[in-house]
């Protein structure tokens, strides 16, 4: 798997001498995608792999996610990395609820996605039972390249998302399905 690093493409729009006009959605999307603040919710070995992703060799900062937010209030992206036990479930959910819209969730590794090898009375069988998930990264644990790929997928979602999507009835119905206000 290879990821080409290229400068951001200019969005579609009207260009002339000294001006460029495009829709607000696209500009906002572009800005959001390239300055995501992830909140690492790391509970086990996937968290270690994420540390490698953040460090100089893989360097997540290249994609604009340099600044990790350890407070949910300022975070855009919740990265759940590792086994979530049933006892941890309500805590994860509270962290999600504390994040301000717009927010995205990335589930990293087999445990967060499905419970993984922990087919057990104490482990939540996938975080999508309690919060909505945008991107799943499979693997046990996934390589840093996969994490970068997951972040790029989130960026694509971010870019193409209408700024009003979160007011849409579909989005509200989805949250209601999870019992989130």
């Amino acid at each position, binding site marked *: 798997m290879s990821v080409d690093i290229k400068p951001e493409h200019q969005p579609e729009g009207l260009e002339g001498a000294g001006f460029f006009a495009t829709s607000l959605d696209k500009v906002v999307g572009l800005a959001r995608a390239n300055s995501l603040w992830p909140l690492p919710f790391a509970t086990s070995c996937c968290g270690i792999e994420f540390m490698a992703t953040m460090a100089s060799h893989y360097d997540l900062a290249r994609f604009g996610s340099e600044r990790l937010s350890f407070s949910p209030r300022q975070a855009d992206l919740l990265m759940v990395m590792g086994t979530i036990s*049933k006892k941890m479930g309500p805590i994860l959910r509270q962290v999600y609820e504390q994040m301000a819209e717009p927010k995205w969730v990335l589930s990293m590794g087999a445990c967060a996605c*499905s*419970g993984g090898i922990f*087919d057990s*009375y104490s482990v939540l069988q996938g975080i999508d*039972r309690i919060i909505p998930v945008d991107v799943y990264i499979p693997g046990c644990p996934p390589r840093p390249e996969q994490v970068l790929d997951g972040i790029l997928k989130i960026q694509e979602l971010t870019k193409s998302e209408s700024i009003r999507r979160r007011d849409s009835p579909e989005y509200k119905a989805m949250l209601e399905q999870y019992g989130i206000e």
Partner: protein
Amino acid sequence: MDNNTLKDSIEQALKAQFDAHFIKAEMDYDFPVFTVKVDAIHDVLSYLKQTEGLGFHFLTTLCVIHMPDQTGAEFGVMYQLHNMHSNQRIRVKTWLSKDYVHIPTASDLWPAANWMERQEFDFFGVKFDGHPNLTRILNMDEMNYYPMRKEYPLEDGSRDDKNDKMFGR
């Protein structure tokens, strides 16, 4: 003092002190193990801790086992004690019937027993009478069963938290 001598001397002391409540002493590999009746367990532990010359002042670990086929003595409680001055270790065992899984707490003797007993309560449902806060410690509070008891099928056929379509089972 080697472990055999240690076993013999403690066996004598316990027999003299507790008589009918003392069941047996044995060597488990090279480890002295004493089995006593549950009525006397607290007195035995306190005797082993406080008596001059014994002084097992440190509780290394405490755990419960479940032997469902052992009728009348389904639950075992094991205490592993350590005398750090003479570097001697012993194990004390007692058995409970599944109809009455109550045992006096050891948390008044060793504060370390507090969390250990909570853990055993959490996983096996053994009630440690006199414990200051006998609540679940590791599992979620809402859990309404004791997961380490050997009374459940390996997998519950009715569970719906794994999708067979995706997990191919």
